[in-house]
């Protein structure tokens, strides 16, 4: 099982379980608002529960399914502003600007 059994309902969104910020941001830019909203509506109600689940394991030794779940939740954070605030994938008025992550902790 790619996700813990309690979170099997999130398996349609597994493509969002991405390890790096650049992959999560690229998927955000490639997604429609409807796609992000659908993912958000499914995952947001499970966020606090997912964190509690992952917190039951040592962070430096997460089981694979918990790791996948946490990565999914990182993508939920990534789409939160498009869904909650911007109503679009890109930051409004940001033109051609980009900010690239060159180093980050990877779950």
């Amino acid at each position, binding site marked *: 099982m790619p996700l813990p059994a309690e979170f099997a309902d999130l398996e349609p969104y597994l493509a969002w379980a991405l390890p790096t910020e650049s992959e999560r941001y690229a998927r955000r830019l490639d997604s429609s608002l409807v796609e992000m909203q659908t993912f958000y509506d499914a995952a947001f109600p499970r966020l606090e529960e997912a964190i509690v689940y*992952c917190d039951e394991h040592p962070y430096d030794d997460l089981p694979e399914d918990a790791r996948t779940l946490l990565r999914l939740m990182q993508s939920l*954070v990534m789409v939160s*502003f498009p869904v909650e605030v911007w109503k679009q994938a890109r930051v409004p*008025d940001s033109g*051609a*600007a980009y900010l690239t992550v060159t180093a980050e902790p990877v779950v």
Partner: protein
Amino acid sequence: MALYPKPAEGSWTEHFPGVGTGVLSYEDCISPEFYEAEREAIFKRAWLNVGRVEDVPRVGSYFTKEIEVAATSLVVVRDLTGQVRAFHNICRHRGNKLMWNDYPRAETAGSCRAFTCKYHGWRYDLTGKLTFVQQEGEFFDLDKADYGLVPVHCEVWAGFIFINLAESPEPLQVFLGAMVTDLGGYPFDALTERYDFTADIRCNWKIFLDAFQEYYHVPVLHSQEATPAARPKMPGFEAPYYNLDGPHRMVATSGPPRRLWPTDYQYPIEIATRSGLFGPWNEPDLGDDLPGVNPGGIKAWQMSNFQIFPNMEILIWQTGWYMLYRYWPTSHNTHRFEGSLFFPPARTASDRAAQECAVVMFKEFALQDAGMLVGTQQGLESRAVRDDFPLNDQELLVRHFHNSVASWVDDYQRAHPVSVTR
């Protein structure tokens, strides 16, 4: 109505002698000639932050740093005694770039016991001494002692690695001054969970830097930092404290931690991750004594933003994390921005989620600045308005910065009247 009392002089700007209240010129951001002057007068004379000690964790750890504004590349390394050293990243044989991978113009990092040139195999130890010359007997009276790497002044303060390209610069701590060095006891070394960002931005480095040293623009450009419910309560911005020290400057803000704001003043993701733009809610215990972070002793201190001349910013949050920004000019109207966010190492998944939320929100709002300021550059370059930009009291640091840049350029030009034209 003023939220905070102003100094006795009536304004922060007038509180500091010599700053002035007149209109500002932005010619310093659009003139190629002025940029050429800055290269010599500022970037080849001032101490420049190029990294943290965590970037060279072990003996032999090194990284390279491209400094386009000074037309050079440096290699920074921890030698066998633990000392951090810097050299021009150039082989003494025929000038080849010494340390690089795949792409000569791209930065690299790694670990080694010696620097070996890819071209003819000349080798240098970690103190820069030339130790091996391929077919040494073919050369003519070559004394290896004469051909070490060209050293660059390198000093460390509070774990921040600085270099200086001048021949004999003043000591780093003298340059930084008391306002900055008072921060030396802050536990930067406890905040090692790090996210690095970079961006190439089509505006002068000072235009971008200006946007990160005044908060007058925040309730307007970044109105969505506040939720729709909170927005009407945030009509403007005032800082309770400003300070200047030599070419360096700082601003502090105050206010209750965001976690204590009403729930409709926070976005759902902030509540769910217990985090947000002002950082994770679970504050690390960094000790009670954090010297220098709140020099004004303001109540309900929230954060302090230290602008270290010329191109470095350290922004320390009361909630126990900090940001480091650097602005590297690449031409008179472009620069490379580097931003890093430093947290305590995540010990749990909830730590990770909270840091993730702070990092993602930083990027949302930084992109607003990055997008808009290209338009500022374009507007200024039209020269439709010249030398007539009014600044208010909350823009004191902008004023002081441009004054400081002008002063460094003027000083240099007085000492070198022929070499630079303005």
